[in-house]
């Protein structure tokens, strides 16, 4: 539990180590679910950094949840990356569909929506 707080401070360069120590602590406390969540968060942070580099956009993805990251990718029309994100993080289908539909409605891509 202590690490949750330190992690919450979100000092960006320290995040990785905080997250991994949080994972450790949870594993020791036999909270596997939480441990795997922290692990996933860590993975996400790294992934976001990667995307930022490939898309050449600094600090747009950091501090965002999976949901928000996905949305951002859709907004920038990086559909392939978005689909990859879905598979990598085992996103639920429901969320995937909601996000897709929402995005299409926003961009008024009615034809695409029709096909969906």
């Amino acid at each position, binding site marked *: 539990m202590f690490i*949750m707080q330190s992690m*919450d401070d979100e000092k960006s360069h320290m995040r990785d180590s905080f997250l991994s120590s949080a994972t450790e602590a949870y594993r020791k406390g036999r909270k596997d*679910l939480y441990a795997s*969540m922290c692990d996933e*968060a860590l993975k996400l942070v790294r992934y976001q950094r990667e995307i930022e580099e490939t898309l050449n956009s600094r600090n747009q993805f950091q501090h965002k*949840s999976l949901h928000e990251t996905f949305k951002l990718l859709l907004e920038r029309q990086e559909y392939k990356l978005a689909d990859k994100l879905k598979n990598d993080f085992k996103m*639920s289908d429901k*969320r995937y569909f909601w*996000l897709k539909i929402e995005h299409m409605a926003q961009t008024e891509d009615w034809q695409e929506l029709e096909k969906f």
Partner: protein
Amino acid sequence: MASHLQGRKVDISFIQTIARNNLINLLEKCPGTKAIVWDSCLAGPVGLVAQYSILSEHQVTKMFPLRPQPLPENDVTHVIFIARPKLELMDYIAHNVHADCKTKSGAKKQYHLFFVPKKSLLCLERLKHSGVLGNVMLIEEFVCELFPFDSDLVSMEIPEVFREYTLENDPTYLYQTAQAIIFLQKLYGPIPRVWGKGAAAKQVWELVVRLQREQNNTEPRKTNQTSCIDKIFLIDRSVDLITPLATQLTYEGLIDEIFGINNSTANFPIHNFLTTEEKNSNTLSEDKKQIILNSGEMLFADIRDKNFNAVGAYLSQQAKAISAQMENIQEKTVQEMKLYVQKLPQLLAKKKALAHHTAIAECIKEVTDSYEFLDTLQTEQEFLNCIDVDKSSPYIEDLICQQKPLVQVLRLICLQSLTCSGLKPKVLECYKKELVHTYGLKALLAVTKLEKVGLLKSQSGARQYTVLRKTLRLTMEDTSEMNPTDISYVHSVYAPLSIRLAEQVTKNGGWKQLQDVMGLLPGPSLDESPLVPNSLLNTESADGTSVVLVFFIGGCTFAEISALRFLSQLEDSNVEFVIGTTKLINGTTFLKSIIESY
């Protein structure tokens, strides 16, 4: 002036007078012009005791909120800080004093600090540490435990009580609650009968007894006040966590859910209040309309406790009555005319009030007619009726996927968890995963806190809620919203558990018939009759009604208050309720007070 506080057996305006005199005495200790710097969570409540006009009579020329930034330029002789004893506020004060000393006028100024309601050593240490204790001339206590809200309602206005006690195991505020109850007993005489439920309730009462014994030892009892309050019922919020989570459907409750009521005032979007001409002129700078809501206004007193579905009909009926009165002037004799003119200001005031409330009702209707509101309500009612509580609710999943406000989602999940006495591990896991996917890890922190408090848990053995629902008749199918016969009208289906307990206790005079039920609720129960000298006993008043103080430790909702008022208005009832609480809450503010970290 304080007409809305009087008119009951227990005259709440005493509290207002005492608090006001305390404040004025303190202010008079500093002759000259003054500026008051308010702790932002106190400025509102203190306004209930002393309005600005009273303060300015005592040479208060300026008021500022207490913030980390330095004070604006001012030229008063005294700067008075009024604050709760909290450490971070001390830092603000120190910062403010430092900055203000350096300004041109700073040298001549005096600084004072009033704590509400108690000094704290820790805070003084903190001030010393930052080197401003020497600059602060007077350090006083402005004793004001309870703020008067209405003729039957007082509140301590401390939102942290529940959180501190359950999450951080810190009973400081219970001590303050006990002080508040002692204060009430001093004012209205000793209370000869006590019931309570929940760990906090028991602890508070033990404190009350002990503190009173200590006080009696030091100063001989000199109060010969007869008891105005016959019974007290202490209830710990953790006994009934369900009620605050269910959407309130009374008029006042809905105003609170949608717009938020703070210190009896609420802000509404202004566009509904303007006539068409005003709308076109576009000269108004404000975009909020502030309205004071208390029983001083007859119309509001009539409709505040009604189910919202009954409010519309009542308003239109009133409107017709007024226009009828105003129209047939022609056929009146001079005598009648005279009467009419006398009544005119009253009528006009009523008409204005009516216009206001119609506008408010329209604002509410916009929300209550939305699909989102109706769907949420339906889901809530399914949970309360134990329908589909075992499964992961598709509606909640949808809400998460649409990234609705976190608190709104958690409120529903907590309700589900409570009604099925713990979620199935798989369901809980699934929710957690989805939450983290949408809101990031901060959701996990929130969930952890809720689990610690008991609002969220995974299933274990007994199903308390299903039993309670049957024995206490918590859900009623056919209650009329227009002419309610049972308290379940405040949530349309669900009768607040806390109020059911209060109902049973006052009716049967104790727990006896509830023994099986009480075992299912957390915490010990309390049933005592402290010794009170016979001379002080209120020999059952002529009409045989007794006054019961219901004190919620950890906050209560407007719907609960409405339900209590409804109970005392029932034909066969012979009780009058006075309600005390540590804070007025609704589901959203309640969860926020737990989740938010600071």
